[in-house]
């Protein structure tokens, strides 16, 4: 047998081995270790070598052969990962609870959750506040200097932007609300609508603790 023939034969064998590895790795639902692959290839085959070779073949492709611990698996090329993520935007009306909470925060800021609940007369779920913060309209301002140090909430610039307000003091006052027919005439004389506080912290507010900010963004690294 000439050397060339031997080379061709081993080329043929190599091709066959690579095909088998390809099929096995493709069809498996978990990464496969060389020891998982060995039974399909016969004895004395250099499986780690074949895997590296196959990895090379796929290096530039849309799908790569990657190592996961002891196992190997096909995975979408990292730079194409965006293909598998799709963003969908849908417009949804804000729920009544969210709308009410938002309006109380707007007028009464800085407002603690207890204060919001006092005005609403019902408990405010954490989900509602989270939603408003996610929407970018509400932020945690600081902590009230009272027992328990509750978080104070306020609105954001995005809130002003969305509702077409230049500043918080543009929010209509008592007389304007009455004039617009939003408040009826039969109101107690002592009813007041607060003037929302803009800007820096109030005297009775402390800055947020560093840990508070972590609540906003769930940490990826932690398990």
């Amino acid at each position, binding site marked *: 047998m000439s050397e060339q023939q031997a080379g061709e034969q081993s080329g043929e064998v190599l091709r066959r081995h690579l095909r088998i590895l390809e099929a096995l790795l493709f069809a498996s639902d978990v990464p496969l270790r060389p020891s998982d692959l060995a039974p399909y290839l016969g004895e004395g085959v250099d499986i780690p070598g074949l895997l590296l070779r196959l990895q090379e073949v796929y290096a530039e492709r849309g799908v790569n052969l990657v190592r996961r611990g002891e196992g190997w698996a096909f995975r979408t090329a990292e730079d194409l990962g965006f293909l598998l993520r799709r963003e969908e935007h849908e417009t949804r009306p804000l729920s009544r609870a969210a709308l009410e909470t938002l309006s109380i925060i707007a007028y009464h800021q800085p407002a603690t959750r207890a204060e919001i609940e006092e*005005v609403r007369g019902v408990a405010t779920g954490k989900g509602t506040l989270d939603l408003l913060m996610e929407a970018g309209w509400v932020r945690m301002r600081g902590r009230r200097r009272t027992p328990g140090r509750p978080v104070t909430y306020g609105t954001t610039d995005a809130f002003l932007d969305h509702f077409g307000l230049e500043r918080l003091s543009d929010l209509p006052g008592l007389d304007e609300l009455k004039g*617009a027919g939003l408040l009826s005439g039969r109101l107690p004389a002592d009813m007041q609508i607060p003037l929302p506080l803009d800007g820096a912290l109030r005297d009775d507010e402390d800055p947020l603790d560093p840990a508070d900010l972590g609540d906003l963004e769930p940490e990826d690294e932690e398990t």
Partner: protein
Amino acid sequence: MTHDRHPDRQPMTQAETNWFDPPAPPAVEDVLRVDVGGYEGPLDLLLDLARRQKVDLSGISILALAEQYLSFIDKVRVRRIEVAADYLVMAAWLAYLKSRLMVPQAAGDDEPSGEMLAAMLQFRLKRLEAMRTAANRLMNRPRLGFQIYPRGAPEPMEIARHSIWEASLYDLLKAYSSQRERGIATDYAPLLRTVWSLQDARDILQRLIGESQEWISLDAYLVDYLATPGERATIRASSFASSLELVRQGQIDIRQTETFGPLFMRRRRSESSE
């Protein structure tokens, strides 16, 4: 005849007959069908009988087939009287076919010839056989999940949904205003009015008038009670209504000298004392 057109005539023995599982027990919807030796229908039975002739379906003797079927059905009927209608209809039809095949067709006979009927039956048997072979070939193909595999660990599409919230300033203000008004409503305590019931008024009137036979105005009687402005209306209304009732019962007299003038009352004198 159809067999002339058949491309390659193969003995029946080569046909694939490895069915995958024994015929399933009759399903609920098939209860009407009576199990005849495990056959699913007359055609099924006929096909099996034809196979036993060990020749191509094109070469089978329809006459022999009909005879075998009829004798099979006869045998089954001895054991089981309730052979299904399907089998009996086919038996009758095959008996008719047999007679058509054996008796030469008379001139002017409009009925289809025995040969035509036989060809039709042969065609149906071949078609069923062909479908069974086709099913077999389909099942013997390299099938997905048996010899061919899809991606074992598909990478699912992640859809990140973002909500864009819709709310207008008007919605916001309306939500705020209605909440504040709702807050007021919870503070509102309805005034508890003193209400004189008719019975109370009557008792009080009876007591005040007593045996007095002088004309005295109602307000004078009630002067102690009318001090509180909020209670005047109810006291007057109840007392007046009660007084009318007392008049009706003949216990008191009422007199009013001018429109909107004071009402005067006194105990009515009993008839006897007058």
